[in-house]
């Protein structure tokens, strides 16, 4: 087992003929992900990346290939529409990689996904990888290693850095999830913590947060109230000045709220083990679950 994606994932790529869709589509196939279909309106009937059929609509792709999850590389202008199309066509897992979607448009997508019970991940996220089984997104596959630690993060490259530290310390990962850096995202830390708590192949979880909003605080309270597995937490942005957007649209300290200090404090109160440097994470994990079970 793993969470979100695994060897049974039959993946649809929306925006498969674009630059990002082509590059990362090939990377995912090379990793072993079953990429069964692509959608680019107007390009239906072609095949790409070897044998992958391209369809004009998600509905056709589902009917012809039985795809059960979608990853979206569509440019910001059309990305919200692409997500709504995937939800309407009945896909239960929709992962939006695209950065730059207006928040107001994501509001509509969020509420529709929720109404339909769809697991919406992102936008502005690196995707999900269950090492050795399935990679959906843009993370470099080779830095991961199959194992029993779950990783949930708001950022892309910071997560890779943490995963790489884990792998070098011989700590493998069950699944690594990027929730996305935008103000309105689909599934949050809490949703994925719930999945990891239930996952028989996960022994501990690493949460990598950043400034802005209250998702990390909610995650900490969830850990306190509902988790039996140990959780280690890191928050980026201790040095971030207030009122400035730090790259991610959601990474802004507003009205003195959403600071890294505040989040780390709540981590501590709720029994999430805080670390000051990403490089301290492997040691902390080993202390918590023992070097062997990782």
């Amino acid at each position, binding site marked *: 087992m793993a969470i979100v994606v695994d060897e049974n994932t039959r993946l649809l790529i929306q925006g498969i003929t674009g630059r*990002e869709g082509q590059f990362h589509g090939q990377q995912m196939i090379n990793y072993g992900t079953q990429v069964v279909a692509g959608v680019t309106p107007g390009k239906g009937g072609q095949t790409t990346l070897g044998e992958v059929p391209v369809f004009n609509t998600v509905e056709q792709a589902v009917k012809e290939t039985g795809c059960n999850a979608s990853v979206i590389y569509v440019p*910001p*202008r059309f990305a919200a529409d692409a997500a709504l199309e995937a939800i309407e066509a009945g896909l239960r897992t929709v992962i939006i990689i695209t*950065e*730059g*979607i*207006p*928040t*107001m*448009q994501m*509001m*509509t997508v*969020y*509420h529709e996904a929720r109404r339909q019970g769809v697991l919406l991940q992102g936008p502005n996220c*690196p995707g999900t990888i269950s090492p050795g089984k399935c990679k959906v997104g*843009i*993370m*470099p596959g080779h*830095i991961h290693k199959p194992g029993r630690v779950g990783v949930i*993060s*708001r*950022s*892309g*490259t*910071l*997560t*890779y*850095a943490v995963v*790489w*530290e884990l792998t070098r310390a011989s700590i493998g990962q069950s699944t690594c999830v990027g929730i996305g*850096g935008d*103000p*309105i995202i689909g599934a949050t830390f809490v949703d994925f913590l719930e999945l990891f708590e239930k996952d028989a192949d996960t022994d501990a979880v690493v949460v*990598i947060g*950043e*400034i802005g*909003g*209250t998702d990390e605080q909610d995650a900490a309270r969830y850990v306190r109230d509902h988790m039996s597995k140990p959780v280690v937490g*890191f928050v*980026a*942005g*201790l*040095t*971030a*000045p207030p009122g*400035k*957007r*730090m*790259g*991610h*649209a*959601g*990474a802004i300290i507003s*009205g*003195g709220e959403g600071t*890294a200090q505040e989040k780390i404090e709540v981590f501590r109160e709720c029994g999430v083990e805080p670390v*000051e*440097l*990403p*490089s301290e994470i492997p040691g902390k994990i080993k202390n918590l679950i023992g070097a062997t079970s990782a």
Partner: protein
Amino acid sequence: MKIHEYQAKAILAKYDVPIPRGQVASTADEAVTIAAEIGSWPVVIKAQVHVGGRGKAGGVKLANSAEEVRQHAGAILGMDIKGITVRKVLVEPGIDIKHEIYLGIILDRITKAPVIMASAEGGVEIEEVAKTNPEKILKLVVPPTYGLRGHHSIIAADFLDIPADARKTFKKVLDGLVAAFIDNDCSLAEINPLVLTGSGHVIACDAKMNFDDNALPWHPELAELRDDGEEDPLEVEARQKSLNYVRLDGRIGCIVNGAGLAMGTMDVVKHFGGTPANFLDIGGGAKAEQVAEALNLITSDPNVDVIFFNIFGGIVRCDIVAQGVLDALKSLPDFDYPIVMRLSGTNDEQARKMLTDSPIHIAATMAEGAQLAVKLSEEKRTAGV
């Protein structure tokens, strides 16, 4: 993106929100002409700057004669408010204030919906009211599926104790504010204060609007309202070059791919006793020219001693970044800043090989890189370079 008060008022006016009939002036002479056109005293002269606290800084004055207009406008224009030079003033008729109300709307991350905030304690910082008297703020969710309806304005008017004769205009203001917020992809729209006048009118005396940067491609008319003079010149230059840059006041210039890692890098530099000079995310698919531009940008900040690259290859391949640095150095023969580089991920070995014959210091981990950058910065300080 932020805009000025006079621009926000112009947008609200299109949505039938009553505003004072003022105009904006860039010279004291223009201000005097506008005051004469208004034709009644007093007039109010308000500095147009994006930062808050202009009233306390002396950027808002009442004038009772043409001479006072000239005097106040002259003093406010050119005034420095929190590091920003005032270049425009708004001249408006003075309003007979009976009561001040706060009315705002934000896109709330928790309910994932627009949320109206209303308070009878207008004219002050709403964050202060939220801290000291949270029960004095009404929070009203605008349902994302069906939007603002009639009962919402009744609930708000009751909470604010709006008198019967002003309720029709109050509803018009609330409808207009919410419609302007949604149509223009705002992240914040605020009327503070919304004034009830002695003669029973409702009028928006101050307004603020911030827009979702991601939505600007949908609103070319809003992008034209951007005022580059209100921002750090290096940040403006960075935006024009599609670099994600925020200036800080430290010594170590950071160039990183990915926003989270960029924040993490700043923190690690600080952890090892250094000070970050900036946040800079070179983003996905960074090209050689872009890396060169990032180097130029960072070194135009005189505080910078050393450059620390922290690159983790996902979308961005390490060899592309390495080639970018080498090309940049070739194009800048006088460049003498020490460079520390940490490269991991896609094509990292190839990238490190490309750099072996260069003067660049290569670090294996983020912590090692940060420590080295801090050391080089200190050495430079001690050497008095």
